[in-house]
């Protein structure tokens, strides 16, 4: 193995990988860089360092409204999706269900169907039932789209919780309900939080389905950015992009850290 580190082939692969990393990060870094540009155009050259676009962002009523919509939608989506997802994951991990493979495939079906098709089907069907383009439709859409991701994430983490801890609690006289709330739920908490965070992030970022479901006049952050792009790229979009990058990268990292902390404390 020692020779690998110095071999020419490995050097080439490493250099190649570095280029791939640069390809992934460069455009994002340019967004962050330009958001601090003092110039009134959202482009090069940089004319100075300034926070003015973040201040303008803060004073832009349309963007703030979109932000509120996205946060509320994301929180509700995460709450519903995680509840449904955790229950389903428990069934699949904890019980021997006949046809478990088939059920798993059904549960992840919403991500096997192209999102555009899902968007059209849901819009037309609910419209037929009398649910017009509305916040409710958006919420239904986001729940169904995020559910498979929650199930995949929660299931993967539930498997690692040992069942004998619960059995020990029960043999010591705890009722099944007590056992669930005092043993199972705390142990599941990292999985639940990870699922909720995943659902929130996906909902917050979604544009493909959202453009089909949102009523006129209601914007989420991604559709607001999309609408702003129609004019030209303004420094405000770059500032908004920077805020989103900090949020979407910072939140999961924070979540992962909290989850690790919790699981460390519980000692398992």
């Amino acid at each position: 193995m020692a020779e690998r580190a110095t071999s020419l082939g490995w050097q080439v692969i490493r250099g190649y990988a570095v280029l791939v990393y640069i390809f992934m990060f460069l455009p994002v870094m340019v967004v962050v860089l330009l958001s601090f540009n003092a110039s009134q155009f959202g482009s090069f050259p940089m004319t100075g360092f300034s926070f003015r676009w973040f201040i303008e962002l803060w004073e832009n009523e349309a963007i703030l409204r979109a932000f509120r919509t996205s946060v509320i939608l994301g929180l509700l989506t995460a709450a519903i999706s995680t509840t449904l997802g955790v229950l389903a994951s428990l069934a699949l991990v904890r019980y021997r269900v006949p046809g478990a493979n088939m059920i798993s495939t059904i549960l992840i079906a919403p991500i096997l169907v192209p999102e555009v098709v899902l968007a059209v089907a849901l819009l037309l069907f609910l419209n037929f039932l009398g649910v017009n383009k509305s916040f409710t439709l958006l919420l239904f859409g986001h729940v169904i789209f995020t559910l498979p991701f929650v199930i995949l994430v929660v299931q993967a983490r539930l498997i690692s919780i040992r069942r004998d801890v619960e059995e020990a609690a029960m043999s010591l006289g705890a009722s099944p309900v007590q056992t669930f709330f005092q043993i199972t739920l705390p142990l599941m908490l990292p999985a639940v939080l990870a699922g909720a965070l995943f659902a929130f992030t996906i909902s917050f970022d979604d544009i493909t389905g959202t453009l089909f479901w949102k009523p006129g006049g209601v914007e989420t952050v991604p559709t607001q950015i999309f609408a702003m792009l129609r004019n030209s790229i303004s420094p405000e979009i770059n500032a908004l992009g920077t805020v989103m990058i900090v949020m979407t990268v910072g939140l999961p990292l924070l979540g992962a850290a909290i989850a690790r902390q919790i699981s460390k404390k519980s000692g398992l």
Partner: protein
Amino acid sequence: MSVEAREKRQPWILLSPALTAITLLLFIPLLFILVYSFWLRTATGADEVGFYLDNWREALTDAFYRDILLHTLKVAAITTVVCAVLGYPAAYFIARSKGNKPVLLLLLMLPFWISYIIRTMSWINILGVSGALNTFLLWVGIINEPMQMLYNEATVILGLVHFLLPFMVLNVFVSLDGIDETLEDAANSLGATRWQSFLQVTLPLSLPGLAAGGLLCFVLGAGTYITPLVLGGTSDAMFANLVFEAIITQLNWPLGSALSLMLLAVLGALVMIYNRYLGMAQLMKGLG
């Protein structure tokens, strides 16, 4: 009720909310648009209930739709190949690196968390008329006038590759990481060169991951309409753009239904073939 019967019922109680949601919000709506696709949009704008084949005839025989479908499949195929070429060596590097694997992987996954629309539009900052590249080339003196590099098929593919590459890397990494490294050592000690042992041992064993990543890139790439709207020109519309046009702009919902189902049939067939030969388990490994 006996304990046994309760044991049997419990998982179904736990599963029922999720299964109900998926049935009501996915399966029935899909069946509904199948029915809807046989209705007809009349000149007055109302939909006439019935059994008309007009939408399907238009969707299946009009050369306009066929050309855009073929163009969509082409763009998705090129995107998938580029993702594989960029992603495989990067995943190999992470899987075989002696450094901190989780951190290396997390670093490449970070862009996955960054907003799709932000990542897509970020290329305007790089390739636009007053973007980074033009500014640099002008400054160096290679060009005198800024070049128009955006809004063509190549930039659509570029945007898609940037969006989908993490899916490829993750899937390939999962399968490479699961390969026993001593297998390669064994091949080497039996006289294979490193390149030979890669081609004959490691590469074949990692093909399921490559296929899973490829399927995801292809299906997600072929179903997009945002990237062509942001980074493409007027002639770079993909099939999902037609669906969006029919449903949102023209409000021709019966035709939009037929077009949606056509897209579902083509991409669904791919998923079925994949499932037939490789199974869904590999795909779930990479997603979870």
